[in-house]
């Protein structure tokens, strides 16, 4: 095992990796930008080094800076987390050249799978069905032609893409040009590469992915699927495992396909094969993510398999101890990504200072986060506040638990999607498992609070104003028992006066 690992990331995933290292007895080295001196990964690591200004392009994305810190601190390996350099072949390559272990697949595997077009060819070779679309990156003119040929709706996707960046759904031809421009522009700023490809958009499709993990001895396991169909702006918001749509036979088949793809590139470490599934249970290869995923915890919860610890062990040369037949799943896990964003304003990020955070807790609850009261959500990085994961015996119980856990959450200072997430947990279609990637678009009513709590909130506000001078504490009064129930009544507001 390594003595020391550098974590080339920030936020909750850096904290997650630090915790895994501590449990393995491995020292950790953090890096931080000017915006992250107060971030938890800095305080929790054994060492921490400053690597530049807040903009990722000047800090977290600068390969030389990361390598320099690794060499100076004596870190033997680097864990890239997700995002940033995690899927950059050049980084894996640079590590290899400097004799630093890259905790992830080979540069070759990253290159093959990182280019979405090559990845499609590999999947084709492994006899995995593909969504109709362009054979490769396209010019503006070609793009229009292909879109016409395969028919609208189509998706424009960045070749170097991931995480919904540089992705646009186009339903009508007259929207195509502006969408193409924006997709290229986003791709350029996010990945430094504006090449895009075009794919048929499958209506009411599910996003289902298979977690795989391979060691350097040729063993590859799959850890079942994750259903990630609840998305906004093509980014996952709610994930779960198992998928309510997948039966054992299909699970087995998809797992085998995923392992086949991984073996085709001699895959080492944790990776995810993403599929799109239509309403007739056909599935098509979408892409492979050659890194740890944001949503890995749901898989850990149902399998008891610690993916991050095993990534590190595998990078250190250890063999996977378990065979496929030893991997089993139990119960149901759900993950909600809690964001600083405003669902009422098309999920626009809501950066700012978290004036107060009260995180939920309890049996079967896991809160992967790195926030605290006073934390500043900046616009330099993703506005995710926390990943809230629950486990329960059944999907139904997991949903109830998630709802009850979200109810415990309190965040002041920024807008969040917590209310929205609770409304999803209460939605009948969601509860029945009738979900697809168009779920949120189909349910605009979930974006807005129903205002049920306004009366109680008003009383709270009035009490706060009244007590703002005597901030300390009111003398505890004895509540008398009576039959009066607040919820059954309306407030004596003197009429609602629109201005």
């Amino acid at each position, binding site marked *: 095992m390594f003595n020391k690992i550098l974590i080339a990331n920030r936020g909750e995933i850096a904290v997650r990796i630090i915790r895994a290292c501590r449990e393995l007895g491995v020292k950790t080295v953090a890096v931080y930008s000017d915006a992250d001196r107060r971030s938890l990964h800095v305080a929790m690591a054994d060492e921490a080094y400053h690597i530049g200004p807040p903009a990722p392009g000047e800090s977290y994305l600068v390969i030389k800076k990361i390598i320099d810190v690794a060499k100076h601190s004596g870190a033997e390996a680097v864990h890239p987390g997700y995002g940033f350099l995690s899927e950059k072949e050049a980084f894996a390559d640079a590590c290899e050249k400097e004799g630093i272990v890259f905790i992830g697949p080979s540069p070759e595997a990253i290159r093959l799978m990182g280019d979405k077009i090559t990845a499609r060819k590999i999947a084709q070779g492994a006899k995995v069905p593909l969504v109709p679309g362009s054979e490769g990156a396209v010019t503006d003119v070609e793009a229009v032609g292909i879109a016409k040929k395969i028919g609208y709706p189509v998706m424009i996707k960045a070749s170097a893409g991931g995480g919904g960046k540089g992705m646009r759904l186009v339903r009508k031809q007259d929207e195509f040009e502006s969408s193409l421009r924006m997709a290229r522009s986003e791709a350029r700023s996010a990945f430094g590469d504006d090449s895009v490809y075009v794919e048929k958009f499958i209506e009411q499709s599910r996003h289902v992915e298979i977690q795989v993990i391979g060691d350097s001895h040729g063993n590859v396991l799959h850890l079942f699927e994750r259903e990630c169909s609840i998305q906004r702006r093509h980014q996952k918001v709610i994930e779960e495992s198992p998928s309510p749509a997948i039966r054992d036979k299909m699970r087995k088949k998809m797992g085998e396909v995923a392992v086949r793809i991984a073996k085709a590139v001699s895959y080492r470490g944790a990776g995810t094969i993403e599929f799109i599934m239509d309403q007739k249970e056909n599935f098509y290869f979408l892409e492979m993510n050659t890194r740890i995923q944001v949503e890995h915890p749901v898989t850990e919860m149902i399998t008891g398999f610690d993916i991050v610890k095993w990534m590190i062990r595998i990078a250190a040369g250890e063999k996977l101890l378990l065979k496929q037949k030893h991997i089993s799943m139990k119960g149901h896990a759900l993950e909600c990504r809690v964001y600083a964003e405003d669902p009422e304003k098309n999920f626009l990020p809501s950066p700012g200072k978290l004036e107060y955070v009260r995180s939920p807790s309890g049996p079967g609850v896991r809160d992967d986060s790195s926030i605290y009261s006073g934390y500043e959500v900046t616009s330099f990085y993703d506005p995710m506040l926390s990943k809230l994961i629950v486990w329960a015996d059944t999907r139904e119980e997991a949903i109830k638990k998630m709802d009850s856990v979200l109810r415990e959450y309190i965040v002041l200072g920024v807008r969040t999607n917590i209310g929205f997430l609770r409304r999803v947990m209460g939605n009948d279609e969601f509860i029945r498992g009738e979900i697809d990637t168009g779920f949120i678009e189909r349910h605009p009513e979930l974006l807005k609070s129903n205002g049920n709590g306004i009366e*109680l909130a008003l009383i709270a506000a009035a009490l706060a104003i009244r007590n703002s001078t005597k901030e300390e504490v009111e003398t505890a009064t004895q509540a008398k028992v009576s039959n009066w129930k607040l919820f059954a009544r309306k407030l004596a507001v003197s009429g609602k006066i629109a201005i």
Partner: protein
Amino acid sequence: MIYTFKFQDQIYRINLEDGKQTEVEIDGKKFPVCFQKIDERFYSILIDGESIGVGILKKGKKVEVFLNGELYEFESISERERQSTSAIISGVQQIKSPMPSRVVKILKNVDEAVNEGEGVIVIEAMKMESELKSPINGRVKEVKVKEGSAVESGSVLIVISSE
């Protein structure tokens, strides 16, 4: 004492009476309330036995209340303010940046005509681009920013007049 709040452009009034213990008036009846600070911004409120745990942030006249997953943003207003408030109907609309961001592209220049719902400017924050749209038919009266400039939340970017 009557407390008046604005919430989503509506006015609400609520009566709290201080006696031997505080009471809240609801439907003409009064019920005991007990307001207890738990920690920095977390409060326990008991209304005649009914319990709520609530996060409260007071910033000047603004009061944020976080209750059961939902955030309520109130503005406390005095009785005088309430009486003098009236809707300001105007054909001039300001397009404001909803958050700290960077201007990527200005889609309409001064004096150019715009339709309701048409994009006028593209901004970027957290690596995501958003197009801000005109809420009215009209003409661009003023462009207050340049492409590439960084803007604060609430900054006026473009002014549109219905002529």
